[in-house]
């Protein structure tokens, strides 16, 4: 009889397509919106993720998040280096500057200054050039997305509206020449600002007006020293704030969420997706069952038990739920693939998100099935003998 239940559903193509479309759209909204949010949130601490080598980030105690720049005196670096358990410590500059492009337009950029000697804090993946090229005069490395997007200018070649920035191109940062010596992959900043890498010394030169320049100190703990212990020791000995990379990511994230309504806004959209999806799906599934109510009565008259009828309705609900969710998740994955690396709004899919949406769809179709089942189970088979 489960075969009959599937046939009844699949052969009623209009209803079937309507129900799975409703579930697919609801799934798409419920996956896509949190996926975009997750992606945006990872951009908040993108720099911390990109700088993989250090274990510990040291900063002014008043810093709340990665974009919260409260520079320290350069002498703090030496104090940190003297703390027990520190293997090495290097300076790291992070600040906002303005770039003047060849075409005359200005762009706000995120400038990162790497330790001159070791280049620690630089991008992990170079598309063109190398980190060593930063040793050349006026050298900077630009992130790939911005080279092709925000920083692009002038007439482009075939397939490009604007000519991307290439190695060898120059522009100005605070009226000082910056020459592109490399293009790198980097996490997009939360506000989509281009990321420009240079040496710590040159970054100080670009940002001359600032008295204190040392934004962060990047620290590696000795092999036998747990990073959290070393971080606590740095705080104790220097009075500076010190966090492991994961702690700093979490702190940045918590601070952002605490001071924005982004969770409420995205949550509201997800809730609307769920409510509208549940209403549309529930209505269509209920209508489908009502249209077949007479036949369920016939089956009951012919000897189908309540258990069998429940199984039939639940199977129909499970099928539309699975197919609708699969289409919605597939469409979300396609969206994620198409926006990956585009520099625009991207989407982060993880198993927790898919499982959460799957659970929401399960609740949705189970609710629809239960409402329909109430009618089916209270149906007297004698109704089919009443003409």
């Amino acid at each position, binding site marked *: 009889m489960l*075969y009959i239940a599937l046939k009844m559903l699949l052969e009623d193509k209009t209803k079937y397509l309507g129900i799975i479309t409703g579930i697919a759209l609801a799934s798409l909204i419920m996956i896509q919106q949190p996926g975009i949010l997750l992606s945006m949130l990872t951009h908040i601490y993108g720099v911390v993720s990109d700088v993989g080598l250090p274990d510990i980030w040291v900063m002014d105690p008043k810093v709340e998040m990665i974009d919260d720049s409260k520079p320290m005196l350069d002498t703090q670096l030496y104090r940190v280096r003297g703390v027990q358990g520190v293997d090495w410590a290097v300076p790291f500059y992070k600040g906002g500057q303005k770039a003047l492009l060849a075409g005359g337009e200005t762009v706000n950029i995120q400038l990162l200054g790497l330790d001159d000697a070791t280049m620690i804090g630089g991008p992990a993946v170079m598309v063109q050039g190398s980190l060593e090229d930063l040793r050349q005069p006026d050298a900077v490395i630009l992130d790939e997305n911005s080279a092709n997007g925000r920083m692009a200018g002038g007439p482009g070649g075939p397939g490009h509206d604007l000519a991307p920035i290439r190695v060898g191109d120059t522009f100005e940062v605070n009226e000082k020449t910056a020459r592109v010596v490399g293009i790198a992959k980097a996490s997009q900043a939360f506000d989509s600002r281009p990321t420009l890498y240079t040496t710590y010394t040159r970054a100080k030169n670009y940002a001359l007006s600032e008295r204190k320049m040392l934004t962060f100190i990047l620290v590696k703990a000795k092999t036998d020293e747990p990073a959290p212990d070393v971080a606590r020791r740095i705080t104790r000995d220097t009075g500076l704030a010190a966090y492991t990379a994961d702690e700093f990511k979490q702190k940045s994230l918590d601070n952002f969420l605490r001071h924005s309504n982004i969770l409420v806004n995205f949550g509201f959209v997800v809730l609307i997706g769920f409510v509208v999806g549940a209403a549309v799906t529930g209505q269509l599934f209920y209508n489908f069952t009502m249209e077949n109510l007479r036949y369920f009565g016939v089956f009951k008259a012919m000897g189908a038990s309540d258990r069998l009828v429940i199984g039939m309705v639940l199977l129909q609900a499970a099928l539309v739920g699975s197919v609708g969710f699969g289409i919605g998740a597939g469409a979300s994955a396609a969206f994620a693939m198409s926006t990956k690396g585009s520099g625009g709004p991207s989407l982060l899919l993880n198993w927790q998100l898919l499982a959460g949406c799957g659970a929401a769809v399960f609740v949705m179709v189970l609710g629809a099935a239960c409402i329909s089942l109430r009618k089916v189970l209270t149906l007297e088979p004698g109704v089919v003998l009443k003409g």
Partner: protein
Amino acid sequence: MMDTSNEVAVRCRGVTKSFGVGAACTQALRGVDLDVPPGELVMLVGPSGCGKTTLISVIAGIMTPDEGQCTLFGRDVSSLDKRELSRLRGQTIGFVFQAFNLVPTLSVAQNVAVPLLINGVPRPLALERARECLSDVGLGDRCEAKPLDLSGGQQQRVAIARAVVHRPRLVVCDEPTSALDHKTGASIMEMLKSLVVGDGKSLIIVTHDQRIFNYADRMAHMDDGRIESVTHAAT
């Protein structure tokens, strides 16, 4: 308790059934006595609202009587629980409905296979048996058609095939010819009689279609919830 004697397929004694309460109470059956022997076609006839449909609902185990006893092949219908009644209906009774009640989204063969599938027969076997049964009613070449592609007479033949496919011992028909023209109605009656009664099974037909009265072996005339008289066909 199972009655092993095959003398009576259906036996009703003092069956009463009412609907509603208080002033809205309607007495549908008022102490009905009826015997249906195996291999006989019994017609329940009478005006609308006289209790015919209620009586076959009680006989078929779809409703339980308020008072009295109704036994089906020796089993007291009112002593069975819901699950046992479902099983009894599934294995013992075939139904033909006035409105055919064929599922429009299923093929004709799938519709006919439904009683077998309810009884747990594997799908390939059920569909094979359904096709054989459709051949028996002259629709062997329309197995994959949808019910709405068939004429009214053909749909009723499909319904008959569905009623007999699982070889029930009793077939209950509710106004099987009322939606059909005289010629088609006659052919449906011939088919029912040959497939059911000819095979030694019992057939109960509720009707007020006088054109088919001559097919009855026995006719129970009902009025106001009672069987007023039972007439036997002239031999």
